[in-house]
């Protein structure tokens, strides 16, 4: 189980939260995801055997939110 934190560009619409949480949450191997609206961050816990941080990165970018920083621990 790994934890990744993605920094995004400033989020301004609260609907972004649902969009990202729903989509990333449905990915295989993602156990938990939380969008920190006020800190412009996405925190995700995932199973590194099933999914990689890069794939989550890609999905968030495809949703229309460029990822500016990524930290996996």
């Amino acid at each position, binding site marked *: 189980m790994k934890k990744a934190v993605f920094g995004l*560009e*400033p989020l*301004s*619409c*609260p*609907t972004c939260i*649902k*969009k990202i949480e*729903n*989509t990333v949450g449905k990915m295989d191997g993602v156990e938990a995801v*939380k969008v*920190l*609206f*006020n*800190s*412009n*961050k996405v925190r995700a816990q995932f199973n590194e055997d099933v999914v990689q941080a890069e794939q989550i990165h890609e999905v968030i970018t495809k*949703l*229309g939110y*460029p990822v500016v920083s990524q930290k996996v*621990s």
Partner: protein
Amino acid sequence: MNAKRTSQITALTGILLAIAVGLHFGGLHEWRQGTLIAATIIAGTPIAIKAFQALRMKAFSIELLVTIAVIGALFIGEYVESAAVTFLFLFGAFLEARTLEKTRSSLRSLIDMAPLEATVMRNGEAVIVSVDDVEKGDRVIIRSGEKVAIDGSIVSGKASLNEAAITGESVPASKSIDDRVFSGTIVDNGFIEVIADKVGDDTTFARIIELVEDAQEAKSKTQKFLDRFANVYTPAIVILSVLVYIFTRNIEMTLTFLVVACPGALVISAPVSIVAGIGNGARNGVLVKGGDIMETLAKIDTVVFDKTGTLTRGRPEVTDIHTFFGDKNDLLRIVAEAEMISEHHLGQTIVKEARKRGIPLLNEPEEAEVIEGNGIRAQIEGKLLTIGNRKLMAANGIIVEDATESYAVKREKLGNTAIFAAIDGVVAGIFSIADQIRPEAKSALNELRASGVKQIIMLTGDNRHTAELVGKQLGLDAIYAELLPEDKVAMIQKLKEAGHKVAMAGDGINDAPAIATADIGLAMGEGGTDISMETADVVLMADRLDQFSHAYSLAKATIRNMKQNTFFAVGTVVLLLAGVLLGKVFLASGMLIHELSVLLVILNAVRLIRYTKKQVDIKQPVPILLPE
């Protein structure tokens, strides 16, 4: 699409609009129409893309409403409207993002204090590495002007440190060997070497940031209500707009209705206030753990304090040693030798006093026994020592003579804790131990009263005389002395049952049950005691009571701000919708007012970031009696 592109597109659209105005006055009608259509398409495309992305995720977004409205406007040939709406929407979003950043800036300024690199000893050489590469047990060197990158203990050198990042306190603290230093603090002056014991995400600083981030997401009751409201509201507006079309057969009015009704200001009104409020607290050394806590804190009318470590500094000192026979230092020596086994802070104070006077403590106590809450018994040099309070003396059949008792009471009335020391069953002396009231306590309590706290109560395990003295000096409404932890819990429950909203402040460990029972639990952080930071609702990072009074008035200001915002947002939407239905508000002007209302709500919240408590008049406290 990134933020920079968006602002470029916004600027381009703005220029095109200006050109269109010029063409209009120049009488070039065809050119004007062409420019407007170009502006609409340039600005409309990113909006449509966002709308499509959201739609693909089955999310209903404001972009979708705007896209529908703009396509509709193009369809009926209202090019001025379509261009103005797309421009206003992009420009509004741009301003919104900029001002939202402001409400988040207090947290940002905290994060910016995070250190990036550290000087570490590796193979006997000092090397500069990234903070991520520092490991537990590393020897870290910090020079004047540098940031501490880890939590750890000083192994050599001394320095004065600015700990504002952790405590909000800007007066530097001087630290030397064995003292703890924290990540995020800055060495003002000096040179220290520190062995790292917490690195990366485990440092107090990293955990404060995480707690504040989580706190800003934790929703208040009002926020949750607004969210539920928005869930019902958005589909309701779609249905209503369909009804508007059926009754009026006016596409433009229907589209305007749809766009204007977007709950933009409404959904953002409560969160921006909370975020700004929590950010302000964090920068001033108060951690408020979320919006709902803010709301409860603002409603508090009764504050209960523990005495030791909360109203007082928690650093007791021996103020007097009174002997009835024998030498003072001799008595101090054997009592201190016996107290070596004690974990109690009073016992440790006596040991500290002996060390301070340079008395060597060589003997090991024999047959030592700790009598919980009362004292200890031990044998030193063949003498039986009984050290503790009156109860311990009585329990061991030691007679406390009248003169001894009256001396002890006299000392207690002066604010001391009197400790009886008996040798072989006869009281040989009395140790007076006293703690100081925190210097800021009185003014902080006055500020709490001025902000609306009705009664301030002290609960303590200490003796009645000392408690009364502290109570009188601070003008407390009631004091309860000689309590056990479970008595404190019972007192708080009683207050709650009497209908009071109770905050309990304690030093985190022995008061934990009472803190958990109160509506708001306050812990003194002491630069980050793990338990207190996790369990309390509000943490005072610098252990200063004026931070509490700041938090209280801040909570009131935050809730007031949130109510203003909600009221304003609802009011604007109602007025706009009425205006649309009466045919007074059109697409572009409706959009403009809508965006303005969002901005005003954010700007109102920005005021909170700079909020500092007002200087209050020192009023004579009005005592209020407790309900029996």
